[in-house]
């Protein structure tokens, strides 16, 4: 037993209890400063992670739990996401004033789920991590109890999420039938022994992929996205679109590249086809949107398509590209959501019309949104460009040139709707000229994300080396 490897998870577990206690003990008037406590928890988690980073690769609990560099890299990204989302909630406090401590507690349970997913070495761990994450998100999505749209979002997410969990469990059962165990080493061994994999096991793998496809919002498991994005509290949407999607991708990487590489002839065409459809659907459906959160929802489907494209390569280069893409996506999308949280508070709605003339009301927010959106679109020298290029390059390398062509065309399509937002901000006239005040901590956080976008976009080599070491 080596509990040391669980340091980060244990810290976060402790903080779940701390936040619950705080919810009970901190008086209502002091509640707004609870974010500091939550932020501290993530910070301590990060210190724990740094301490773990000095240790080597290891397994724990009968090989159920992996603490390799891959896990550490993605745990770092998850902690970063959680930290930014906590900072984001500061701008959203007005809506969350009831039971704020419980909200942060749920944030930590979701974070715990993501951290577990980065370390899975067993299908049951996959299920536990995923359910931990998703259950927290069900509640968080419906957190605005008096807002019908938020409740609708939570309910929709719950129903579709349960169905996809059903797929996942059924898939796990079929795979258990094949290997007689749910652990990854056993599955690997079974795959190498049987040159002919039975149809039931193949179906099991595809069902597991379907369950994970729900998490990353790939077509055809994307129906929850627009409504949930529109209705859920914005910081939760940020967590959904960055953290939850990243967790899904990490799980797919673990399952497909860690175990089922011998079956790549089965899943590569499936993922490639899904990637093409997902990209086209997400980006085309984003064009007519009139609500910024719905637009970002469809855009996140588009990005899921790019991630699937990188996943469909079956090569180390593809894994590296996906790792880089997620890093770039994290910074760009969080920057955009930070602006949306801040601006929507002042505008009073999420309608795109409200963003007209934003550049006059707050040059800083407009510029941050501009940079974030361009990075999402993949414009150099920003982070998104390097991510997209690496994914396209890895896909071209795997010989799927048709997919590269579709991916490349999607860059132009996505640029169109991102620029439509830019057009409103810079060319539109605002209904009121009242300037939007931006707090200094918010300004600092957004500036940090923008700096990240620029650095990741310009200096690729050090990040790429980290990722290459992680996926090896």
């Amino acid at each position, binding site marked *: 037993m080596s509990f040391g490897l669980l340091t980060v998870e244990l810290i976060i577990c402790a903080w779940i209890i701390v936040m619950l206690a705080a919810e009970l003990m901190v008086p209502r008037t002091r509640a707004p400063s609870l974010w500091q406590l939550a932020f501290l928890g993530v910070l301590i988690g990060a210190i724990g992670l740094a301490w773990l980073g000095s240790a080597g690769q290891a397994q724990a609990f009968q090989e159920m739990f992996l603490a390799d560099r891959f896990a550490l890299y993605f745990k770092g990204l998850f902690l970063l996401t959680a930290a930014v989302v906590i900072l984001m909630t500061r701008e959203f406090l007005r809506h969350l004033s009831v039971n704020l401590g419980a909200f942060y507690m749920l944030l930590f349970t979701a974070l715990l789920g993501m951290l577990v997913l980065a370390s899975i070495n067993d299908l049951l761990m996959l299920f536990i991590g995923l359910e931990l994450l998703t259950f927290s998100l069900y509640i968080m999505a419906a957190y605005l109890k008096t807002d019908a749209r938020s409740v609708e979002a939570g309910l929709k997410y719950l129903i579709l999420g349960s169905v996809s969990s059903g797929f996942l469990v059924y898939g796990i059962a079929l795979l258990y039938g094949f290997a007689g165990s749910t652990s990854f080493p056993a599955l690997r061994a079974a795959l190498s022994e049987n040159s002919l994999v039975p149809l039931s096991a193949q179906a099991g793998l595809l069902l597991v992929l379907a369950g994970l496809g729900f998490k990353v919002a790939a077509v055809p498991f994307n129906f929850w996205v627009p409504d949930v994005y529109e209705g859920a509290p914005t910081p939760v949407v940020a967590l959904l679109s960055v953290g939850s999607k990243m967790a899904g991708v990490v799980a797919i990487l673990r399952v497909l590249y860690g175990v089922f590489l011998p079956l790549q002839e089965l899943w590569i065409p499936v993922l490639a086809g899904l990637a093409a459809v997902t990209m086209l659907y997400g980006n085309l459906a984003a064009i007519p949107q009139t609500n910024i959160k719905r637009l970002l929802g469809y855009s996140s489907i588009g990005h899921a398509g790019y991630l699937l494209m990188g996943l469909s390569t079956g090569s180390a280069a593809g894994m590296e590209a996906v790792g880089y893409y997620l890093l770039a996506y994290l910074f760009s999308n969080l920057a955009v959501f930070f602006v949306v949280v801040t601006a929507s508070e002042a505008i009073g709605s999420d309608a795109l019309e409200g963003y007209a003339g934003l550049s006059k009301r707050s040059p800083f927010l407009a510029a941050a949104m501009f940079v974030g959106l361009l990075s999402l679109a993949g414009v*150099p020298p920003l982070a998104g460009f390097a991510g997209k290029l690496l994914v396209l390059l890895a896909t071209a390398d795997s*010989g799927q*040139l048709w997919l*590269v*062509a579709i991916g490349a065309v999607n860059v*132009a399509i996505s*640029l*169109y709707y991102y*620029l439509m937002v830019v057009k409103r901000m810079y060319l539109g006239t605002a209904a009121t000229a009242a300037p939007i005040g931006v707090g200094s901590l918010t300004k600092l956080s957004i500036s940090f994300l923008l700096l990240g976008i620029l650095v990741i976009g310009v200096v690729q080599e050090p990040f790429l080396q980290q990722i*290459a070491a992680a996926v090896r």
Partner: protein
Amino acid sequence: MAPLPLVILFAPVLGALIILCLPSERTALIRRVSVAVMGVSLAGAVAALATYETARGGYQHEVFIPWIATLGIGFHLGVDGISAVLVLLHALCAFTGVLISYAIKQRVKEYYVFYLLLITGVFGVFLSLDLFFFYLFYEMAVIPMYPLIGIWGSDVKEGGLVRFTKEYAAMKLTIYLTLGAVVALVGLLWLYVSSDVRTFDLPALQQAFASGPLAPPLQRWIAPLLIIGFGVIAPLWPLHSWSPIGHAAAPSAVSMLHAGVLMKLGSFAIIRLVIGLLPEGAAMWMPWLATLCVMNILYGGFVAMAQKDLKLIIGYSSSSHMGYVLLGIACLTPLGLDGAVLLMFAHGLMTALAFALVGHVYDETHSRYLPDLGGLAHQLPFIATCGVMAAMASSGLPGFGNFASELLVFVGAWDVYPIQTVCGVFGVVITAVYMLRLVRGTFFGAAKPAFTHVHDAVSPLARLPYVVLIAALLWIGCWPKPVVQIIDASARPLLERTSPGDLRQYARPPEEAR
């Protein structure tokens, strides 16, 4: 002293960074900073061209910084004879463009930041010797156009009615160019994954392909992706429709860069990548290009004759004249290629001059609508003089650069594409018609009372951009030899691997081939 390409490329970046830190009210200082940094770039460009050693040829002033070693990406800058000339063209247009930008009065700080980023992107494309950075800078040059046109541009009106808005023009331009870029990107990635050397480094690729070229069928597939992808910005008929309206809606200084330099990125990319890396593919597709570019020349010319908006006339004339450049490239003869590059230079200067002049007229009279104008030579003697010279240059009058270069193109293309060349020559006549009509309609005739209060460019600073551009045009027209020698030093080795015999085999009519 830092290597020249770094100076040229990073002077505008530095300028943009300084301007970002300045308060937005200090417009005079912002303008001075941008003029200063562009002066540095211009000096660097002149030095790079002047010190280019013709006898040695190849890539010179190289800078190499390893970037992503595992993927074969390096930050590799340098110039050959062709890009040295185009860097100077861009430096001239950018320097004069910054001066012309004094007319911008609103959101000055943001304007100069975007403008300097645009300038950086274009310099980067000309200077990059690495395909990754080539593409990176290319996309970087396209995107700032959107805010530049959208915020500081103007709607195109005709007889009081809005024909199209600046938002429409900006979006159309951006999407067209991005679509073109990604088509080219597919070609570039295909090229990368099918080469054995696994590098984005241009000289390394050229060296590798010299000993073991890509399989000809592969070349024939990749070449059209690059020709069409970069052809969009060239702008190749029928993918040109973003260009005239983009020029018309953009502010003058942006139109100058846009028509003067940005469009040349397309033809430059075709020379550097298609002819340089895919000789077999080039030989197969160049006859198609030659036919399409005749459509450019004639169609663009005829449409220009029908326009009444000054900027649209020049916009369509640009897409018509770029047809000559493409014809010079398509013939794959040293003479034609020299002419094409020289014409890129001369046409860039001429168009920049024309857009600057139209910009002055528009700022003073608030109209670009030909029927509303007239008699402006009375109030604007200096601008009118320059206007006549620009029209003469555009129509190919001997003494201006355009004449020398168009002659080279026609002579070079004659052997290979006689029919297309004859058709193309008629374009010169069409140009004369619309340019002379433009000059007559704007500057000559009785003075109009509405324009009694318009001002000429009087101060030396206001006259400087026009003088610089005209001087360069005359220099290149009267004494093209040194420049042609520099171009030729790089053009000839490029063509060595495509023998004219290859091309004739494809260009010949089918019955003869049998």
